C-alpha cells in the first residue's frame, strides 16, 4: 500500500501550551482544521517528541467548553450559578476601563490582578505595575515558590526553567518528591537516555508512580519529612568526609568566618574587612577566612591561602568566630540517620547507604572536560570537573510549610557534593545564576502606591533584608495577599491562595475589582474550596458583594468563570501570539539562553481575544504610560507590535524577545527593535537559541568570562562571583531583627518568635505547621496528590481524548492500611481532615507508603463545569482533595489575621508563603451501608453559557470533514 497523505495542505510551527513545558510543535492543517500535531524535531526542548497532552491539542481546540463571547452576569443571578448574557467586546472594555480608571484615580491597590499557570508574567506584571497596584502575582505562591526561593537564595538558581540535572553526564540521579510535570518532555528524554547509559536512578517518594516507576530503587518516605532525610544525609556526608572540600572552599561561603559574639549586633553575620563597599545587590568580596598556613584571618580567596573549614577561633579583638561549615557541622550533629529513621520511615542503613552512594560516586567518578576557563578571582583552570551526582525535586519538597528549609538542605547537599553548575550535576539555565538574592525589589513603603501613577518598584521582588519588606510604618502588609510582609517575608511569588479569603475578610483591606486570568480559584487552585466559593458570592451587611467586581479571562468554562461578573473569552494557544521571554521564564538550555514564541496557526474562534490584546487595549484606554505616546494616543497597534517595539526603557535595547534584535536582526539579547523579528522567529522554528562558548557553559556562578558576558548582555547587573550560601546571612538578618538587633525594621511583637524560629541561617527540621496543629492520633494519614502525565491541572477534562484516560479518581490507600480500616478495594469511603471531608472510592495499592493516601490532582470537577454533562464521571465519581485542605491555620500567635474565623494565618511556609498543599492529615473510614454512591460534596450543576458549542454525544472527528 503506498500511503500518501495528500490532504495536509499546510504545516505550521508554533509552541505547545497543553502544559507549561513549551515544546516546539508542528501543526498540520487540512481545510483549516487541525489534522495532526507532532513534536518539532528541530526544537531544542523536545527534539521532536510530544506528550499525551500535546497530541490531544485538537480536542482542546474544538472543545465545547470553549468560551466564545464576552459574557456579563445576568442581573439578579447569583455568582456561581453561571447565568450570563453575551455582550460585545466594546461593552466589556468600557465596563472594565471605566471601573479601573476610577480605581486608578483614587486607590490603585483596589484593583488586584492574579494569574494562573500563564506564560506571560512579564506582560501581566508590567500591566499591574503601570496601573499602580501592588496586588499582582501569578500562581507561583501556590505552586513551587519554595523550590525557586530555597534554591535561588542558596545557589543563585533553581530547578526547571532556571536549571536542572545534567543527566547526560550524571551517574547517579536522585529524584525526591513529586516532579512529574516540571520538566515534562525534556525530563523524560533525559531520564531514558540516563537509564540506557547505565545510570542509577533513585526515587524518594511516598508514592511510586510516574517517573518513580522506572527508578532502580524506590525509597518510600513519609510526606513532609524530606528535610529530616536530607539533613541526615548531610550529617553522614560530613561525618565520613565525603564532601568536596576544594569546591566548598573556593565556591561557597563554607570557609567564611561567622561572628559569634552574642552581644554584638553583628551576631551570626560574616566578619567583614574594611574593604570599600559598592552599593548593590551582590555579595562583596570582603569576608574572612582563617588561613591554615599562617593561622590568621585573611580575606577570602587570597592567593596561596587555604582556610580551615572546621574549628573555632578568636579574632585579635577577642571576637569568637567559626567558619560557617563548622556551624553546619554542628547543626547536623544530632541529625543522625537513626534520628531520621523515626521521622521518615526510611531505615537508617538505607539513609547511610544513600549518603555513601552519593559521596563515593561524586568523589570517585569525577568527570574532567578539557575546557579551559577562568574563575572570578582570575585563576585559570585547564579543565572543568564534575561530580556526577544529580538531583531533581519540585513540588513534592516545596508544597510543605517546612519546604523552604528542606530545599535549602537539598541545595546544600548538592553543594557539599560539589555538583553546582558542573557536568553531571546541577546546571544553570540563563538568565540564572543570578545574585543571591536577585536584584529586583518591591517598594518598601505604601507610599509607592499613588493614584494615577505606576507602582514605584516591582510588584514582586527578592528581599535581601527586613528593610526590603513591603510593609507600612506599623509593619502591616501593603499587598492584599500579605506577601513581603513579616508573615511571609520572602514570598517572592506572592500568595495567590489567600487573595480571595483576605479580600473577603477585608484583611488587610477590601478591594474593588479582582481580575483573574486562567486560574481556577473556585475549584482546584484554591484550598478550602467550599468556603472560598461562598466567599466569592458573599455580601456585606449593606447587601454589596464583599468582592464587588470579579472579572475572569479564560479560554474555557471553568468553575471559576461561573463566579465572574464579567467573562472575557481568551483564545487557545493555536490562535495567538505569545512570547516565552527572557524577561519572564524562558526555555533556556544548559548551554545558553533560549526564548521562543507562539505564532497563530488558526484564526480566533468566535469572538475570542488573546488576553495580551485585552491588556494592551485596557492599558491604552487607561493611558498607562508604556502603552501610550506622550500625547496619550495609542502606541501599539496590537500585541505583536508591542513585542517588537517595547523596550524596558527607551533605548535600552532590551525587549521581550532576545533573538534577532537590531535593525536587521543581527543582534541578540540587546539591540534596537527589529520590525521583522516575528518573521525571523517564524523562519527559525519559533525559537532563538544562543549557544554559549564551551568555556562559558559551566561554573557560571564564578566564571569570569560568563559573568562578564552576562553583564554585557544585560542579563545581570553585576559580574561579581555568586558564592553559594551554605550559611544564609539573608535569613540571619531577619532573625537579628526579630531579636531586636541592628538598625533595620523590626517585626511586630506577635511575629517576633515566628521570624526568629524560621529565619535560621542554617537549615533545620521542624514538623510542618499543619501537622503541629493536628491531633495526629485522630488524623494519622498524610494525604497528597500526584500529577497524572496525561492531564495538566484541571485543564483537560474538557478534552474528549484525555478525559477517557482519567475520567474520575480514586483515593489510593496502602493495602495493609486499608484492611486495618476495614476498607475493601473499590469501597466508598470518607476522607476526613479537621477542616472538611469528601466521599470517594478507595483503591488498594502497594505502591504507596502505609502512612500516606493519595489521588490524582484535579480530576474531580463540579457538575456541569467544563461543559461536561451534569452526570459526567468527573463530578459524580471524581473528587477534589482540596475540600479537606484549609487555606488558613489557627494561629497560636496573638494579633494575626483577626477576623470572623478567629486568629488565622495562611497555611503556608512562614518564610516564602508557599501553599502547604501536602501537609494535611486525614483519617479514612468506610461509608455507612446504603450511603449514596456519589462523591461528596456535590454542587448544583452549571448550565452551558451563551456562545458555547453544543456537547456532542458522538464524535467522529476526521480533520477536514466538518462533522
Amino acid at each position, binding site marked *: 500500500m503506498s500511503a500518501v497523505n495528500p490532504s495536509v495542505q499546510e504545516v505550521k510551527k508554533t509552541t505547545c501550551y497543553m502544559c507549561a513545558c513549551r515544546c516546539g510543535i508542528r501543526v498540520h492543517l487540512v481545510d483549516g482544521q487541525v489534522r495532526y500535531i507532532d513534536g518539532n524535531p528541530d526544537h531544542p526542548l523536545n527534539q521532536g517528541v510530544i506528550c499525551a497532552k500535546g497530541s490531544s491539542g485538537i480536542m482542546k481546540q474544538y472543545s465545547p467548553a470553549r468560551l466564545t463571547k464576552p459574557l456579563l452576569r445576568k442581573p439578579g443571578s447569583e455568582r456561581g450559578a453561571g447565568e450570563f448574557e453575551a455582550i460585545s467586546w466594546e461593552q466589556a472594555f468600557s465596563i472594565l476601563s471605566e471601573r479601573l480608571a476610577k480605581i486608578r484615580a483614587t486607590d490603585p491597590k483596589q484593583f488586584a490582578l492574579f494569574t494562573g499557570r500563564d506564560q506571560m508574567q512579564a506582560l501581566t506584571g508590567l500591566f499591574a505595575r503601570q496601573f499602580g497596584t501592588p496586588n499582582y502575582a501569578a500562581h507561583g505562591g501556590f505552586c513551587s515558590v519554595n523550590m525557586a526561593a530555597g534554591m535561588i537564595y542558596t545557589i543563585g538558581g533553581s530547578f526547571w526553567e532556571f536549571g536542572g540535572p545534567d543527566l547526560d553526564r550524571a551517574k547517579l540521579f536522585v529524584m525526591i518528591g513529586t516532579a512529574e510535570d516540571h520538566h515534562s518532555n525534556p525530563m523524560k528524554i533525559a531520564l531514558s537516555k540516563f537509564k540506557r547509559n547505565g545510570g542509577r536512578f533513585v526515587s524518594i517518594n511516598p508514592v511510586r508512580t510516574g517517573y518513580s516507576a522506572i527508578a532502580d530503587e524506590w525509597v518510600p518516605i513519609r510526606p513532609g519529612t524530606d528535610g529530616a532525610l536530607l539533613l541526615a544525609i548531610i550529617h553522614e556526608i560530613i561525618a565520613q568526609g565525603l564532601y568536596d572540600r576544594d569546591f566548598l572552599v573556593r565556591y561557597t561561603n563554607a570557609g567564611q568566618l561567622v561572628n559569634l559574639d552574642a552581644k554584638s549586633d553583628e551576631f551570626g553575620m560574616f566578619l567583614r574587612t574594611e574593604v570599600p563597599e559598592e552599593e548593590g545587590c551582590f555579595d562583596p568580596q570582603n569576608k574572612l577566612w582563617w588561613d591554615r598556613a599562617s593561622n590568621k584571618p585573611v580575606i577570602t580567596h587570597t592567593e596561596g591561602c587555604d582556610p580551615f573549614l572546621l574549628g573555632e577561633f578568636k579574632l585579635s579583638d577577642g571576637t569568637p568566630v567559626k567558619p560557617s561549615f563548622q556551624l553546619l557541622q554542628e547543626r547536623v550533629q544530632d541529625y543522625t540517620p537513626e534520628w531520621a529513621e523515626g521521622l521518615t520511615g526510611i531505615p537508617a542503613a538505607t539513609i547511610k547507604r544513600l549518603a555513601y552512594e552519593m559521596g563515593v560516586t561524586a568523589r570517585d567518578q569525577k568527570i574532567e572536560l578539557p575546557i579551559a576557563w577562568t574563575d572570578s578571582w582570575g585563576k585559570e583552570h585547564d579543565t572543568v570537573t564534575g561530580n556526577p551526582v544529580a538531583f531533581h525535586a519540585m513540588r513534592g519538597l516545596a508544597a510543605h510549610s517546612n519546604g523552604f528549609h528542606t530545599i535549602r538542605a537539598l541545595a546544600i547537599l548538592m553543594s557539599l557534593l560539589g555538583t553546582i553548575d558542573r557536568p553531571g550535576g546541577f546546571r544553570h539555565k540563563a538568565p540564572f545564576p543570578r545574585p543571591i538574592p536577585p536584584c529586583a525589589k518591591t517598594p518598601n513603603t505604601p507610599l509607592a502606591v499613588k493614584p494615577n501613577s505606576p507602582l514605584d518598584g516591582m510588584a514582586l521582588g527578592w528581599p535581601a533584608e527586613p528593610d526590603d519588606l513591603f510593609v507600612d510604618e506599623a509593619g502591616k502588609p501593603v499587598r492584599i495577599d500579605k506577601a513581603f510582609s513579616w508573615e511571609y517575608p520572602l514570598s517572592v511569588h506572592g500568595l495567590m491562595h489567600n487573595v480571595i479569603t483576605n479580600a473577603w475578610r477585608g484583611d488587610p483591606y477590601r478591594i474593588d475589582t479582582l481580575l483573574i486570568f486562567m486560574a481556577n480559584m473556585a475549584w482546584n487552585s484554591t484550598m478550602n474550596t467550599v468556603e472560598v466559593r461562598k466567599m466569592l458570592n458573599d455580601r456585606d451587611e449593606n447587601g454589596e458583594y464583599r468582592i464587588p467586581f470579579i472579572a475572569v479571562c479564560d479560554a474555557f468554562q471553568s468553575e471559576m468563570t461561573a463566579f465572574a461578573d464579567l467573562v472575557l473569552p481568551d483564545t487557545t494557544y493555536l490562535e495567538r501570539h505569545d512570547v516565552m521571554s527572557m524577561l519572564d521564564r524562558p526555555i533556556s538550555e544548559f548551554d545558553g539562553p533560549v526564548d521562543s514564541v507562539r505564532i497563530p496557526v488558526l484564526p480566533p474562534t468566535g469572538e475570542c481575544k488573546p488576553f495580551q490584546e485585552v491588556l494592551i487595549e485596557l492599558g491604552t484606554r487607561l493611558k498607562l504610560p508604556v502603552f501610550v505616546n506622550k500625547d496619550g494616543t495609542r502606541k501599539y497597534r496590537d500585541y505583536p507590535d508591542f513585542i517588537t517595539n517595547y523596550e524596558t526603557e527607551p533605548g535600552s535595547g532590551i525587549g521581550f524577545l532576545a533573538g534577532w534584535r537590531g535593525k536587521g536582526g543581527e543582534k541578540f539579547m540587546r539591540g534596537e527593535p527589529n520590525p521583522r523579528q516575528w518573521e525571523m522567529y517564524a523562519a527559525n522554528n519559533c525559537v532563538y537559541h544562543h549557544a554559549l562558548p564551551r568555556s562559558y557553559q559551566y561554573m557560571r556562578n564564578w566564571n569570569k568570562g560568563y559573568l562578564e558576558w552576562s553583564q554585557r548582555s544585560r542579563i545581570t547587573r553585576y559580574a561579581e562571583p555568586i558564592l553559594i550560601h551554605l550559611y544564609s546571612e539573608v535569613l540571619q538578618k531577619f532573625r537579628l531583627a526579630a531579636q531586636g538587633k541592628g538598625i533595620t525594621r523590626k517585626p511586630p511583637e506577635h511575629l517576633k518568635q515566628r521570624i526568629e524560629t524560621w529565619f535560621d541561617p542554617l537549615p533545620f527540621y521542624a514538623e510542618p505547621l499543619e501537622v503541629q496543629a493536628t491531633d495526629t492520633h485522630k488524623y494519622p494519614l498524610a494525604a497528597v496528590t500526584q500529577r497524572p502525565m496525561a492531564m495538566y491541572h484541571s485543564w483537560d477534562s474538557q478534552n474528549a481524548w484525555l478525559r*477517557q*484516560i*482519567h*475520567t*474520575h*479518581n*480514586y483515593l*489510593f490507600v496502602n493495602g495493609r492500611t486499608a484492611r486495618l480500616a476495614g476498607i475493601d478495594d473499590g469501597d466508598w469511603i470518607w476522607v476526613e481532615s479537621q477542616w472538611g471531608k469528601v466521599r470517594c472510592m478507595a*483503591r488498594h495499592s502497594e*505502591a504507596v507508603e502505609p502512612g500516606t493516601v493519595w489521588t490524582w490532582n484535579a480530576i474531580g470537577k463540579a457538575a456541569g463545569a467544563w461543559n461536561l454533562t451534569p452526570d459526567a464521571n468527573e463530578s459524580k465519581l471524581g473528587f477534589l482533595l482540596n475540600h479537606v485542605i484549609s487555606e488558613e491555620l489557627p494561629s497560636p500567635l496573638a494579633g494575626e489575621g483577626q477576623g470572623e474565623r478567629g486568629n488565622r494565618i495562611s497555611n503556608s511556609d512562614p518564610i516564602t508563603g508557599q501553599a502547604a498543599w501536602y501537609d494535611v492529615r486525614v483519617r479514612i473510614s468506610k461509608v455507612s451501608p446504603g450511603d449514596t454512591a456519589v462523591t461528596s460534596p456535590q454542587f448544583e450543576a452549571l448550565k452551558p453559557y451563551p456562545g458555547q458549542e453544543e456537547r456532542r454525544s458522538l464524535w467522529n472527528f476526521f480533520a477536514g470533514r466538518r462533522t
Partner: protein
Amino acid sequence: MHPAFSVIFLTTLIGVGQGLFLALFTVESYAAFDLLPPQAGRFYALGSMLALGFLVAGLIASFFHLGHPERAWRSAAKWRTSWLSREVIVLPAFMGVVFLYGAAHFTGFNPALATLPSGVPVNVTAILGVAGTVLAFALFVCTGMIYACLRFLQEWHTPLTVINYTLLGGASGFVLATALAALSAPEVAGFYGGWAMILTLLALVGRAASLLRNARLRPKSTLRTAIGVKHPRIAQKAQGAMGGSFNTREFFHGRTAAFLRQVKWLFLLLAFILPLGLLAGGAATGSAALLLAAFVVQYSGLLAERWFFFAQANHPQNLYYQAVS
C-alpha cells in the same frame, strides 16, 4: 465472554432445525426399511417447513450480530481457513436441501432413481435426505468448531463443544418432532419420544462432562505471561480507559458468579430434567400439549445453556481489563 442474543438464538434455533430434519429423515429411513410405518408426504413436508422456519429464524438472528449484514455474502470467501465461513456456506446449503426435501414430499415428486441390492428403492427424498443429514452434521461441526477452534478459550477448546452442539440440537429437534408427531403422525410419536429422551439424556451427559471439565480448568495464561513479569503478585491498577471500552463490553458477562451458578442450575433443570419428565408424561398420556411444553421448556433451557456457554468462557484478554483507577 459477553453472551450476544443474536448468537444465542442463531445457534439454538438452527440446532432445532437440524435436529428436526434429522428426526424426519430418520423416520423416513426406518420406514424405507419397513422398521416404522410409512408416513404421508404431508408429514415430512410440514416438518421440513417447520425445520426451515427455525433455520431461517436462526439466520435472521445471525444478521443482528453483524455490523454490516449487507456484506454478509463476503463471508463465504475464506472457507479454507475459517469455520465461520464454512458455516456460512453449509447453512444455506442445508436450508436449500431441507427446502427441496420438503418440496419433494409436498409435491409428491419422488421417483426412485435406483434400487439397492436389497430391493429398497433409492428415491429423490432419500438422496436429499442423505445429503441433508450430511449437511446437518457438517453444520453441527461448523458451529461447534467456531468455538472449539479458539484454543485460548479453554472452556470451548474441546471436542465436547462439537459433541454438545450436536446432541443439544439433536435433542431439541427430536423433542419438537415428538410433539409434531403427536399432532400429525401419532404412530411414530413413541419412536420419537424414545429417541428424544435418549438424546436429551446423552446431551445431559455431554454437557455435564463439559461442566466438570471446565470446573477443573486451570487458565494457561496468567498476568505473569500477559505482561511478562515473573512475580506471583501482580495487580492491575489502570487499564488505560475508565469509561469502558470494547474490551470491557465484548468479553465480560457483567454478572456475578452467583448469577452464573443460578443460570447453570436453571439450564440443567430446563433443558434436561423438566423436558425428560414432560416427555415421559407425554408418552404416558399421549398428550401433545405436554410434548409441546417439553419442547418449549427445553428450548428456553437451551437459551439459558447458550448464555451460560458464552458467559463461562473466560477470555485471556480479560487479564488486561481487571481494574481502573
